[in-house]
């Protein structure tokens, strides 16, 4: 009996080994690669590729390759021509005339005209449309009336001729050109949108350097070089984005050569940094982001500025950054990332646990229980526990509450938490993007100001900055506003994260950009 079964077991094993051998050649020789194509990883399947609907970075990264705006950002974060060859600003910063380049074509070979710009912008503002991105263009004159259904078109969008479009704003708004670099301001062809209807989200047609060849949902997206691109063509034949949710799987795929570039997972950073084989192939970029511990400033105990500052003194941010975070960022002193700050920021006080404890005692908050909301993300859990231990020494009893992401977001938008951990990433490279949504009192909750911070002077300064004509004038207002914010500590400012990627040795001219919309995929080669 035993013999029979050992024979059967051996047979099963040999069948499995034979199967592996049989599969060895197709698996290894092809190695999931297509010649001339660069292979990237996506953490998850993009939900939509319709620029009107995109709200996530993944969708933004891909749509940047498929579409163009009137303008885009260069490597130094300057606004440069894209579909618009040049532009003129007049009427004290309220009128913009864009001159479109001739010969730029959509992937369906029709030329891009000023009428397409009008259609694309009005589509974002359409009261019957589904776009959640109307805030990008609602500064245009007549946009509010159009959005509320009181006007049949947007007064401030005027097609002068086939290649010229004039856009008038309701008021001067200094970041306007920056806003036009965003996904929502990409130009789409009306006939394709109408042809596909809701399915334009999965059949995007733009004028970008690549076109979508195939989208196998949850598996891979294949972009092909647009041979008729109006600018210099991409050096690669195309891009394959593989959807790989698990970090370790992506690392395995990379080490097997099936991926050409990966974002380095936090727990692999030290290994690659030490590895002689890989360390020279790491690229990094100072991210335009701010990680912070937010207070609920609208209710006790953290409506008390002194207590907020005490929390700030009690946490050794530098130590956390250097040890736990392995130096993968720059210490932040205020909400605006260092790369965008053109003014001096007064230091608000370093780690001082004794002082923190004294303030907590003085304010009568000793052993006070505070609720700290986080998501189950392991990095966030670890940071929360570190913060909890620092605050315990300061005399505050932190109760960590974990919520799944959707519930977490709803809770902090409602203002349920005393403390919460979150980050803010730039949509466009302007200090205004880190001040208006996050600290203006009109934006409490889901609009960005989750700390529910209110200061009329800060509101006034941010609005003055938005209405400035010159960047230097705007920076003056923003500088004063940021100093007040840093002094009043509605957040504990932690760090500006630096992003790291790892590439294969044969990947040339690869760059990592601080904003997703900047990478058009034109320079990289294999």
């Amino acid at each position: 009996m035993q013999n029979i079964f050992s024979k059967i077991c051996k047979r099963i094993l040999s069948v499995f080994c034979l199967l592996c051998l049989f599969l060895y050649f197709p698996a290894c020789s092809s190695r999931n690669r297509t010649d001339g194509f660069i292979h990237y990883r996506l953490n998850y399947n993009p939900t939509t590729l319709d620029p009107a609907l995109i709200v996530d970075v993944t969708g933004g990264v891909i749509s940047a390759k498929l579409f163009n705006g009137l303008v885009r950002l260069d490597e130094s974060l300057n606004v440069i021509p894209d579909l618009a060859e040049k532009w003129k600003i007049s009427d004290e910063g309220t009128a913009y005339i864009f001159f479109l380049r001739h010969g730029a074509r959509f992937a369906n070979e029709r030329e891009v005209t000023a009428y397409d710009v009008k259609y694309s912008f009005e589509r974002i503002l359409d009261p019957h449309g589904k776009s959640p991105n109307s805030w990008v263009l609602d500064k245009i004159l007549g946009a509010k009336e159009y959005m509320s259904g009181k006007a049949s078109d947007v007064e401030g969008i005027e097609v002068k001729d086939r290649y010229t479009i004039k856009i008038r704003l309701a008021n001067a708004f200094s970041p306007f050109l920056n806003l036009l670099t965003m996904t929502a301001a990409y130009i789409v062809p009306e006939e394709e949108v109408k042809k596909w209807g809701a399915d334009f989200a999965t059949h995007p047609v733009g004028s970008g350097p690549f076109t979508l060849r195939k989208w196998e949902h949850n598996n891979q997206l294949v972009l092909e070089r647009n041979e008729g691109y109006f600018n210099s063509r991409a050096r690669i034949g195309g891009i394959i984005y593989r959807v790989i949710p698990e970090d370790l799987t992506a690392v395995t795929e990379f080490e097997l050569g099936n991926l050409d570039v990966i974002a380095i997972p936090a727990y692999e950073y030290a290994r690659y940094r030490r590895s002689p084989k890989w360390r020279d192939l790491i690229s990094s970029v100072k991210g335009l982001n701010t990680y912070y511990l937010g207070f609920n400033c609208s209710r006790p105990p953290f409506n008390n500025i002194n207590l907020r500052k005490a929390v700030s003194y009690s946490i050794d941010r530098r130590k956390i950054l250097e040890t736990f975070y392995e130096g993968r960022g720059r210490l932040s002193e205020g909400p605006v990332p260092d790369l965008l700050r053109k003014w001096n920021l007064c230091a608000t006080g370093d780690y001082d646990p004794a002082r923190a404890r004294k303030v907590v005692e003085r304010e009568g908050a000793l052993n006070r229980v505070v609720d700290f909301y986080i998501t189950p993300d392991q990095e966030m859990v670890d940071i929360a526990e570190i913060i909890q231990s620092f605050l315990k020494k300061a005399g505050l009893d932190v109760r960590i509450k974990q919520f799944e992401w959707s519930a977490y977001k709803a809770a902090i938008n409602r203002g349920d938490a005393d403390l919460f951990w979150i980050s803010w990433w730039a949509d466009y490279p302007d200090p205004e993007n880190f001040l208006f949504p996050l600290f203006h009192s009109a934006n409490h909750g889901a609009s960005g100001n989750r700390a529910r911070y209110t200061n009329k002077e800060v509101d006034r300064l941010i609005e003055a900055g938005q209405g400035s004509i010159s960047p230097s004038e705007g920076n003056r207002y923003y500088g004063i506003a940021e100093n007040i914010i840093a002094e009043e500590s509605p957040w504990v400012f932690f760090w500006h994260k630096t992003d790291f990627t790892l590439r294969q040795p044969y990947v040339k001219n690869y760059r990592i950009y601080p904003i997703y919309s900047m990478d058009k995929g034109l320079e990289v080669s294999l």
Partner: protein
Amino acid sequence: MITFALTKALPGDPVYTLVGERSSPEIIEKVRKEIGADKGTVRQYIGYVSLLIKGDMGRSYYTNRKVFDDIKSKFPNTLALAAGAMAIAVPSGILLGLLSALKKGGISDRVISTVSILFLSVPVFWSGLMIMLFFSLRLKILPPSGTGGLQYMLLPSLTLALPAFATIARVTRVSVLDVVTMPFIRTARAKGIKESSINALHIMKNALIPVVTVIGLDFGSYLNGAVLTETIFGWDGVGRFTMEGIVKRDYPVIMGCIIVGTMLFVMINLLVDVIYHYVDPRVRIHGAKR
């Protein structure tokens, strides 16, 4: 109705994920209206049921794709994975379970029991990663992730098969040990029937009843998707789809997946009952053969 109520009782709001990080109350209200979340729960339920009666499961809030079409496209992948796992687990589980029972107390029994307990105790996310690291990174014989042909299917199937194998082997062992003490086996031996025939025809046939139940339960649950395995191996199945729906509070997706999953589970149970009919004469309706 229970599923709908439970889905709605989940904390969180899909609108906040739909509108992104920066949105005005007007936009939030507009999107809420767009997806019908502004209506009362009862009206939403009536709306959903009337859609369902027409054979429509609605569209995903995020991708705007038809939920039924998505499930339809992912189900073959899930079915393939479940079938692959069962193809590995069932024969090996039954054979080794039988061997373990027949050699009770021997080395083979101890080894098989230890391995079974190990496979049952080790979480799938760990065993999956280990299997991937060994076969893909070390031996370089199978791709670590992706959805596609047999070479992509083998590792996730093997991962899923481990706990299923362990359960089947253990249940087979217990069941066989129960059957071998039955008087009819003694009678069969007394009749001089060959030992191999006793094992195959008398013992196995009678011991199979609880094993069929376990196989049915495992297969039914795998058909509802194996979230962790599908995530680790980047397999585009129903499990990942359901999980993403739950995480994003994509109610039409959650509802659609649960309804289809429940139907599948019921069908598998029905199939198991039909198999009983052939395996166990006691469950046949008396007189059915007249």
